């Protein structure tokens, strides 16, 4: 299978690899996928409570090159957006940007899921900060 140049670039130079403190109330963590399915993405966002702007985004992904590229791209796109704008990121935009073939569309769907899970985790923490802390941020 031939990969697009953009997928190869993200695979070779993944952006924003790493982890944020999942106990931090300003951090939202999304963990989606399952090892049995061959894809697990952890995507984290750090939000400025004043401005609601995503100041930092990090990811770690177990999955194929397209899954790594999709989540790497997602973190790039998330930085500087508001939480509401983050939810507007659609998997189809990731497919287009990375030129993903049909068999790899699920990778982009997973990245969209990871964004939503991270945002929801952050939002839950604002409602129930203590509970979320105990849950440790696992989606």
């Amino acid at each position, binding site marked *: 299978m031939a990969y697009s140049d953009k997928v190869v670039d993200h695979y070779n130079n*993944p952006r924003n690899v790493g982890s944020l403190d999942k106990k931090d109330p300003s951090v939202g963590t999304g963990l989606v996928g399952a090892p*049995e399915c*061959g894809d697990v993405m952890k995507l984290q966002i750090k939000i400025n409570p004043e401005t609601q702007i995503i100041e930092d985004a990090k990811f770690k992904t177990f999955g*194929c090159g397209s899954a790594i590229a999709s989540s790497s791209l997602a973190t790039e796109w998330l930085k500087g957006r508001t939480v509401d704008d983050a939810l507007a990121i659609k998997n189809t935009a990731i497919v287009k940007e990375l030129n993903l073939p049909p068999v790899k569309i699920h990778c982009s769907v997973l990245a969209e899921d990871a964004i939503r899970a991270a945002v929801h985790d952050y939002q839950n923490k604002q409602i129930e900060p203590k509970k979320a802390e105990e849950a440790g941020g696992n989606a």
Partner: protein
Amino acid sequence: MALKLPIYMDYHATTPCDPRVFEAMRPYFTEIFGNAASRNHQFGWEAEEAVENARKQAAGLIAASPKEIVFTSGATESDNLAIKGVAEMYYERGDHIITAVTEHKAVLDSCKKLEKRGFKVTYLPVGSDGLISPDDVRNAITDKTILLTIMMANNEIGVIQPISEIGKVCKEKGVIFHTDATQAIGKIPFNVNDLNVDLASFSGHKIYGPKGVGGLYVRRKNPRVVLVPIMDGGGHERGMRSGTLNVTGIVGLGKACELAKGEMPTENERVFALREKLRKGIMDEIPDVYVNGHSTERLPGNLNMSFAYVEGESLLMGMNDIAVSSGSACTSASLEPSYVLKALGVGEELAHSSIRFGLGRFNTEEEVDYTIGRVNEAVNRLRELSPLWEMVQEGIDLSKVQWAGE
């Protein structure tokens, strides 16, 4: 000698034609081009002579008589011919066939087709080492069983089945025994009498011969096996496989068999040493790596490993100047991880993390050294990228996590 990239380490998929094989084939494209079935002129006689010489070479590799070799287009056709040919010939004796879950698709899908036509098929399980128990074979045989088809060496995990013992059970019970020996013949010693096999499939391009040619051994004595052909036409190959013979390919297959027979002992020793060097070079450096399949009952050149917490396709991308294959769903057309690994009870997450190295005739020690470095580097890099690896380092038991995708 300078290392040439990319490195080919996928010898179970196919092998390059040995230059000596290619040289043997060369005259048969343009000079000796006759139809081996043309009985009335020089061109035909020469072609026929070449085919009969190749038949002797192929028979010689497996201790058969040349008359017991039927040339086909490859092992897939041989498997189809053996299984469907026996079913159609002997259906009045019984309607039961036995095979195993880890067989090649050419065998499994032939059996499935027969099931649709009313045959009953038993799919034997394998142990966690990938091996079939001869006792399971014995217990599965009924008075309706006409055929048992079990591969000699597995194409993914390289494990070698106890074919001789299984063959003994079949002989005792009067069941025809076919073995898909595509990965075995030419790679490990194969004697049709010692192994008690009645039918054996083999292929040219797995043994440094050309693609598009293979063979089927069909026993002529004790018992004499008769097959109904799946292709009708001019009645070539004693009526079992019609179609003008692929003389050039057959010459190549014959030469490949002759070379395999002569070089097997030294080649196996060399390839085995390379395989072990590769295995140790990886396992000594990287934790949480598992070898899939029996550790010693396997082809000398096969190494199938799972690298926990790293997905197979991404690992292939990280070592893209080395040609290997993966049991990961992402690398297959079906989007399912390897059914062979699943049959061994390898968890799906480890099936997604598997890599098959297939070493062969033209691999060098330098290539193995380079591969060890590349694999270890890619695994370490991908583990730094892996949320699973991070969780395990934090002491989280992955099996207890409630995954969102489940």
